[in-house]
Structure formats: structure tokens, C-alpha cells
């Protein structure tokens, strides 16, 4: 027996009924090792209006570059384990914020490393499928050899890289623009 993937449909305006129970905005949730960082930003639509009814889902590696998988989890105590999943709704002003630890480098194709990054899925009314993007960290020499950043036209790469906030240590800013001059790069995952 074989089939084709079930078509995607929008989450619609009322997804919080089904999603909120699993909201995770504080990913460390315990004491895993690594550098803590808070990332905040806004989601903006084609008119520059904030999107108050969106949700981000994150997936990322731990500080050593490992993704949490059942076979890895048994070796660690629950306190040390970093789960790597986040679910973050936007608020009425279209803002989101989450705290995580900076992931390590993850193996890429051809034996090269990928620069530290967070996988991001975006859900909202108006999106018939989720959007997929990536968040990278500022000032990382590994960007130059990252296979994904190198697929992105140079002029658009900055949309994937979070910016430091001068007055707030350990805090980064990263906006998602759905359309317009600085439209965020989205991927076909």
C-alpha cells in the first residue's frame, strides 16, 4: 500500500484552542549546559501590520550540536536534557519572545558543519501551509561556509540573522516579514 501525503490546511484563527497546552517559551526548562539567549521580535504582514494570531514552532540542537532523540535521552538526567522544541504564539501586538540556549554546530552535507541555527516553522490564518525559515546567530565566521546561507542570495541573507540589542546582553532581535522589501527568506523544506 502506498499513498500521497495528506494536503495541508491552514491552522485558521482559533488554533490557540488546540495549541496552547503545549506552549514552550522557556526552552532550557531545567539546567542544561550552554549559553542562554533570549530572542524576541515581531511578525509583520504585507502592509507592515503586526500579526497577532501567529505561532512559531522551533526545533534546535543542544549546545553540543545534538538533537534530542529517544536514544540520546536515556544517557542524560532529565535536568541535563535539552528538549529543543518550542511553541511560541504572538501576542496582540504581533510580538513573540523565547529563551533558549545557543545550539552547537550540526553536521551538514559533505561532512562540513552548519553554522548554529534554529529551525522555525510559522503557522497562522492565511497560510495554507506552514512557512519554514531558519534563525542564525550574529557575528559567526561559520556563516561563510554554511550550506543553507550559501543557497540564499547575498542581499537577502541578513533576514535570517538575529541582531544583538546593545542595551540588553544575551538578547537578540529577529523579525519575520511575510512580504515587502525585506521579506524574510522562507524555505521549501
Amino acid at each position, binding site marked *: 500500500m*502506498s499513498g500521497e501525503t495528506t494536503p495541508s490546511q491552514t491552522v485558521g484563527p482559533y*488554533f490557540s484552542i488546540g495549541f496552547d*497546552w503545549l506552549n514552550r517559551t522557556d526552552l532550557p526548562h531545567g539546567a542544561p549546559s550552554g549559553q542562554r539567549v533570549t530572542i524576541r521580535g515581531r511578525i509583520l504582514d504585507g502592509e507592515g501590520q503586526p500579526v497577532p494570531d501567529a505561532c512559531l514552532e522551533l526545533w534546535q540542537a543542544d549546545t553540543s550540536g545534538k538533537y534530542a532523540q529517544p536514544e540520546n535521552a536515556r544517557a542524560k538526567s532529565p535536568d541535563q536534557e535539552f528538549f529543543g522544541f518550542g511553541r511560541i504564539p504572538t501576542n496582540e501586538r504581533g510580538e513573540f519572545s523565547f529563551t533558549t540556549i545557543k545550539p552547537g554546530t550540526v553536521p551538514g552535507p559533505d561532512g562540513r558543519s552548519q553554522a548554529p541555527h534554529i529551525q522555525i516553522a510559522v503557522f497562522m490564518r492565511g497560510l495554507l501551509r506552514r512557512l519554514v525559515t531558519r534563525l542564525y546567530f550574529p557575528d559567526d565566521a561559520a556563516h561563510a561556509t554554511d550550506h543553507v546561507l550559501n543557497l540564499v542570495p547575498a542581499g537577502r541573507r541578513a533576514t535570517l540573522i538575529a541582531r544583538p540589542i546593545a542595551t540588553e546582553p544575551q538578547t537578540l532581535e529577529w523579525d519575520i516579514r511575510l512580504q515587502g522589501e525585506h521579506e524574510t527568506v522562507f524555505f521549501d*523544506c
Partner: protein
Amino acid sequence: MLRYRRPSPGTQPGLLYPPYASSIKRAPTQPLIPLPHTHSETTGPYFPRDVVPPKAFDLTRQHKGEPLGERIVVSGRLLDEDGRPVPNSLVEIWQANAAGRYLHKADQHDAPLDPNFTGMGQTLTDDEGCYRFVTIRPGAYPWRNHYNAWRPQHIHFSVFGPAFATRLVTQMYFPGDPLLEFDPIYNSVPVESARKRLISVFDWATTTPEIALGFRFDIVLRGRNATPMER
């Protein structure tokens, strides 16, 4: 590493679909960049059994009294494109009540809320990829997408599968619903045979005497390429 297959053309909705008005200001305008699959895409969150409360599969037992409406059993299998079951996957649902009203502050439809119905459920698929919910049949409801627009009865489904790449959110519809023909969200899927897989099937096998009608909704997640190659 095994990569996940891309969908056949027309079997998934596009991002911009003007009949669905909300897509116009929210769908990206630049082409998507194909993402090669690495560990970042082929791994995903796993949820232990205890993340889901044991009674979360039964939406008719979450309050003191029983919700109003037609009780139904919604069940099916989570499979990949090669027909293999997808076990231990989190499945989340949410829906309107029998009157077509969501328990949500943004829903201003003039229909009653039901104090005995939240409209939220979760479960994990078993070793055979099977899931089962008990709920009530949701009502149709108006929305302002176009003149006299009504959403067909539907239940929202959110499924994780084994990887970031397999994550799927969709909607399950009911057989014979006359509103499907007019619904831009349903009709955003170009290929008719793919679209029709969103419609559940009435199921004698899970119809429970004196209790509830059964509807079957199998969900298929992406399969993997037989040979590891991508560029």
C-alpha cells in the same frame, strides 16, 4: 541519511490563493528556496506518553456534563507514503462546538457556547499508528471571506511524525457536506483526488451501538527516498 520526498505537483495547496482572502497579505511573494535535508530536518521532537493526559482523547468528558450535539468517534491511522505506520506521534485536534462556535475570544459568531465543551483533544498514535478520539460533530459556521461564506464542518488536525520535515497541520471534513464545493480553503488543493483525501469516511466498524457514529480519517505523512541523494 534518508531524505524526505517532495510532494507531487498540485497535491498540496500553494501559499497565495486569492479566493482565500487572508492569504493575500500573508503569503510570501519570493520563491521558496529548496532546503537540503540534514539532521536539522530529519529529526524532530518526540513526546513521551505522559505528556498527554489519559482522558485527552475524549472531548465529551472534559467537563461536569456532556456537551450537546451528535457524539462521534473519529479514528484512523497515521501512515507514511509507503504505507508504514507512524507510531508514538502526537496528534492534536481542535474544533467548533455543535452550534458552530469556537471557545475563542475572536469568534463572534452569534451561536451559543457550550459550557461542557472546550473543543480540544490530544493523543499519541499506538504501535500500529492508530489514533482515536471521541467528540461531537462540529457545526458549520459563517466567516467573512466572501458574501454568505460558510465553512464546512471540520476538525483541525495537527500531527508531528518523526521529523521536522513531516510536521503537518490539516483539516478533516465530513462526507457529503454540500459546503465543500464552495469552500476556498478546501479547494486550495489543486488536484481533486488529493483534496478528497481530506474527507473522512463513515465507518460501521467504529460506529458504537447506542453511543456514537464512527468516522475514519487516515493521515499520510511524507515518505523517504529509497536512495540518499539530493542536490
